[in-house]
Every structure is written in C-alpha cells, then in structure tokens.
C-alpha cells in the first residue's frame, strides 16, 4: 500500500504536461499537484486507494462508485457464491423446462396416462420398471409429473413473484419516500402516518384477505392477484429507508446549489436525491426478493397462492408435505432448492451492503 501511494503522485505529474490547454504556466496547475486530489473525505479516499491498488493506470480515467463496489463484492466469497447460485438457478428455471421438453418431450404439467402401475410417484433416478434412469432425476410427484420440471417451473414463478413485487416496491417505495422526505412538514407527516397504519396491519392476513376476496377462477388470474397483493405491502420499508436517506441528504449543500441554479423540485428529488440513495435501495431490494419469495411460498403452502397446474416452490412443498412419509423427495427437492436460493440471495444482499457502504468495510 505504501509503495502504491508513493508512486501515485508521480503518475499524476507525468500526465500534467498534457493537461495544459490554456498554456497558463503557474498558478492553477498547482491545483493538480495538490494532494487534495485524493484527500477527499475518508470514504472516497479509501475507495480510491482500493482502486489504485487494483489497477494503477485506470485511476486517471476515473472510477465510479459502482466499479469500486463491484470489486469489493468480488472479494466477498459468500456473496460471489450467492451470485453464482442465483444466476444458475435463474437460468435453469427459465431455460430448464424448455430443455427438458426438447430432450425428453415432457412438459412440467404432463401427466402420463398410459402408466400401468398404480403408484405414479417414482423415486429419483428411477424408471418405470424400477431400474436406474435419468428420466426423472428428482422423481415424480403423485400425479406422475416430472419433479425436476415442476421445480424449475416453480422457480420461474417464485423468482418472478419476488422480482415483480420488488420492482413495485422500488417504484412506489422510492418515489413515495423521496417525496415525503424532501417536501417534509405536514405532507411528510401525513404520508408517513399512512405507512405506519399499513405497517400495523398484519400484512400476511391482509394479503390473505385480498386474495380470498378477489379470488380468481383461473390460475393465471390468481397469480396476478398474488403479484398485486405482495407488491402492495412490500414497499413500506423501502419508503421509510428512502425517506430517511433523503432527510439526511436534503440539507446538504449540493441540494441548495441545485436549487440556486433554478432546478425544479421534482428534478431535485428524482435526479439529484434518488441516485444518492441508490446504495441502500439496491441492498434493501436484494433483501426484499427473498423476503417476498418466502411470503409467496408461505401463502402457496396455505393454498392461497399459486394454483395447479402452475407451481411454485411453496405449492410444491405443500403438495410434498402431504406425502412426506412415503415420498419424501417431493418435499425435499423443492424445499432444498428454495432454501438454497434464499440463502444465496441473502448472502448476495449482505455482500452488496458491505460493498456499497464504505463505513462497514473492514479492509
């Protein structure tokens, strides 16, 4: 580290002659030699030091906060593990069923009708005659549907629910919180009391009521209802987080400076303040996804969520738990897959928090 920092001023000086378009010899050129370039505030200084130790020359081209964060994220083994698992499961969920159909010719909701045996539920790696077979690596469910296909399709829906609800929470929560925080005063009070009221309602019950009140006939309609129900309660914490951030940011001088240049209120909120809250927002959004997925699984487990023939990890686990003594794989596979995904998302969220929050950094 010492060695690096000592060689840096030289770097900067070496580019100095090129940086002289006006040809003013003295005076301001010193600005550039000024050690101030790196003595910016503790966070930034450390951040830059990190960058430099990684790639010395890149420094001149400048590095954004995001690139620093990315580099720090890659140092965190658990987060990288989480990232890889999340990407793998996402890819498998969305491409898997298609691949299975192409290779084996079965869709996740295919129920074999020509089956001679009464027991349609095969253990993993077992064919029709009890021999080893790759046809059903996770076995089949009690209707004879391929469990792997079901789990992957369930993953699609589980991830979808998580992502959509999080997007809703981003959209509503961020704008709501930012407006409340920036405008302040009576409006802030009103808006945040509304959030408090919504908070105090037990939201699982709220979702259950919503889902049973507007019970839809089709599986797809039920799914959309689920999106709406989860989305409508998932933005509350986001709104609080963003409001808190905006409150602490809005008295900073750059906001005053923006106002002094005549920027409109709306623009200040969304172009100047919201980008500054992105760090915590991203972290919280990453942690919202598993939370929403868990809620969805819980609801599906209770039978309020996804309806057959569609499946989610929750509904698969719910089906599996009925036969747990005889066909344990029906619970184990969706359960383990979901646990693994939630684990990974949480690791990733924690990693992102560490990467984006300079104060939490240990190195």
């Amino acid at each position, binding site marked *: 580290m010492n060695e690096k920092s000592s060689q840096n001023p030289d770097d900067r000086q070496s580019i100095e002659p090129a940086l002289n378009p*006006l040809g003013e010899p003295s005076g*301001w*050129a010193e*600005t*550039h030699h000024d050690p101030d*370039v790196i003595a910016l505030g503790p966070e930034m200084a450390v951040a830059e030091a990190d960058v430099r130790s990684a790639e010395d020359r890149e420094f001149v081209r400048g590095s954004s906060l995001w690139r620093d964060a990315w580099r720090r994220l890659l140092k965190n083994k658990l987060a990288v593990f989480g990232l890889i698992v999340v990407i793998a499961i996402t890819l498998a969920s969305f491409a898997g069923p298609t691949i299975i159909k192409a290779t084996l010719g079965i869709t996740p909701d295919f129920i074999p009708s020509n089956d001679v045996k009464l027991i349609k539920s095969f253990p993993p790696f077992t064919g029709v005659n009890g021999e080893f077979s790759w046809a059903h690596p996770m076995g089949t469910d009690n209707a004879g549907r391929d469990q792997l296909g079901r789990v992957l399709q369930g993953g699609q829906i589980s991830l979808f629910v998580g992502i959509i609800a999080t997007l809703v929470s981003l959209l509503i929560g961020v704008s709501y919180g930012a407006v409340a925080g920036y405008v302040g005063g009576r409006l802030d009070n009103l808006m945040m009391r509304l959030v408090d009221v919504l908070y105090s309602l037990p939201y699982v019950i709220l979702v259950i009521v919503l889902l049973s009140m507007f019970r839809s006939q089709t599986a797809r309609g039920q799914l959309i209802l689920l999106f709406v129900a989860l989305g409508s309660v998932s933005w509350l914490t986001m709104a609080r987080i963003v409001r808190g951030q905006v409150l602490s940011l809005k008295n900073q001088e750059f906001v005053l400076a923006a*106002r*002094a240049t005549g920027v409109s209120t709306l623009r200040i909120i969304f172009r100047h303040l919201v980008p500054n809250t992105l760090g915590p927002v991203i972290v919280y959004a990453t942690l919202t996804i598993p939370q929403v997925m868990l809620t969805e699984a819980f609801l599906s487990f209770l039978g309020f969520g996804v309806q057959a023939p569609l499946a989610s990890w929750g509904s698969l686990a719910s089906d599996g738990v009925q036969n747990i003594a005889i066909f344990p794989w029906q619970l184990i596979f969706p359960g383990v897959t979901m646990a693994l995904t939630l684990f990974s998302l949480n690791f990733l969220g924690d990693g992102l928090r560490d990467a984006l929050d300079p104060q939490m950094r240990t190195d």
Partner: protein
Amino acid sequence: MSSANGNLLEVNDLRTYFETEDGIVKAVDGISFNLRRGETLGIVGESGSGKSVTNLSIIRLVPNPPGKIVAGEVVFNGQDILLLPAEEVRKIRGRRIAMIFQDPMTSLNPFLKISRQLMEVTQLHLGHTKAQAYEHAIKMLETVGIPDARTRVDNYPHEFSGGMRQRVMIAMALSCEPELLIADEPTTALDVTIQAQILELIKSLKEKTGTSVILITHDLGVVAGMTDHVIVMYAGKIFEQAKTAGLFARPGNPYTKGLLRSVPDPTAEQGQLYQIPGSPPDVAHLKPGCPFAPRCERAEEICHREFPPFVELTPDHHSLCHFAQEVFAASDGATNS
C-alpha cells in the same frame, strides 16, 4: 429593463426572521443597499451576523420553515423578486442570479458526473440540446482553467481537488452569464494559494463578462483586494457601509476598527493577537441598546440604552454608532493596522 438609476440590485429594509423555540431570531434586520452593474460588493462580518441569510433572501432560498422574509423588497432589474411567483424566481436563479457556495466539497452532487451537473443548468435555462450543453460545459471548464477539460468533464466530483471543484462551481454559476453572481465565502474552505487563484479567477471573469458580484466573506484581506463597496454586518444589521478604500482608510465604527485590528499582521512585533472581547450576541434576545455595546471599547451609557443612529459620514460612508463622527474623525489617517 434596468432601473433608471443604474442599479442592478436594490435591497430595501430587508428583514428575514427565523422562528425558533428560543424565540424569533432576527437574522437579517432592516438591511438596505444598492449594487450597480459591474460593481463588486463585499459583505463582511463574523459568523452568525446574517451575511449568508441576506443573500439567500435575495434569491428566496431561505429555508422555510423556520425562516421567513417578513418585510422589505429586493428589486432586481426593476422587479421586486419577493413579489414574483415561485416559478418566475426559479427562472431567475442560475440564469440571471447565480450563486457559489462556501464548501466546494459538498456543493457538487457526488453521484452525478461533472458534465451532467454543468449541462443541467444550460439545458434548463438556455434550452440547449444535450450536445450543445455538453460542448458548453467543456467550454466553461476551459474558461475556469480546468486542464484537459474534455476528459475531465466526465469525471465525478470526488476525482477533483477542492480548488478544482470550486472552479467547477464557478463554471456552473457562470454558464448562463448571469447579471449577478453571489459568492458566499467562496474561498473559506480552501488553502491560501488556492484562495488566491480562485479570487483571481472570479475577478478576471467578472471583468470579462461585466457581471456584478456580491462577495460574502469574513476575510478582510479578500474584501480589500476584490470589492468596490463594503458592508460590515453585525447581529443582522449593517454597521458600516462605505467604499472599500474609504472603509479601510478611515473606519467610522468601533466594530469595524476592531475587525481591522484583529487581522494578524506578520510584520508587527505584537506579542498577542488582538481580539474583540466577548462573542457575538444572541440575536434572539437583543437588548434595546446597540447590539455591539457589551463588547465595545468606546461604549458609554447611552449605547446600552438607545439604539444607535445610522450616521452619514460622507455621501457614501455610513456608520451605525452613537459616536460615528468622533470615531471617524479619530481614525483619520492615524489608525491603520
């Protein structure tokens, strides 16, 4: 557009009060001054004397609540800014009156590229397209002496040093060629060499564009080199108002004299620095007399009892003091530190 007497800005009896739990704080209490086109006005005073609030009041950026402009007028180009609808004021800000702030470290948005922040102003006020605004941003950076502006323009603020960031702020403030530039302690957060560069830059750009400048500072040295007129503020009031040369040569107010004596003089072999005894008063609870009386060497009984008059010493030299004439006479040539 310009008013008949050639004044760009006329501030009349401006009063800005803050409502606090402690009572009403009269941060600015009856300030009046004029600023002619192309002139520079310095406002000097200790911390909390109301310098910054005066200027925030001019462009109506006083935080409300708790602050409120309760009276007065701010006539800019013949228009009273305080009576304009908010939307109109927004069009004036940045376009015709621009501001530079004290701390360049915090007055740029850390998350936006320099280019974005510079482009925003001209896109907003001059209707530039993205490409035009980008070129203009580069041009402005070159004007304020940022080396290699074309590459630097896409940097983030944290990649700039303090002095360079203040240059960026100046570039931003001047990008629409405003008629009035308000610089609120533009050099306070910078070290001495950078200070000199920044002041020199403001001075030269001012001469080039003919912009009027209001320079707020607590540094008397800055005032001496930069301004045509000076206002000395204390406790929300103007204590002395004069041409810069006149004020330095012949201060007419004990407070100004105290300030001048407080400037460290490296050549003098003084053992101790002079300081005005006491501290600035609590403007929420001012006593009826002169607010400076408790700290004033010259104070007599009347000072504690009656509010001093605003005495005209010469046509452009005024002082708020019961003994203005005497102080003025006494300081004739004799006292100058």
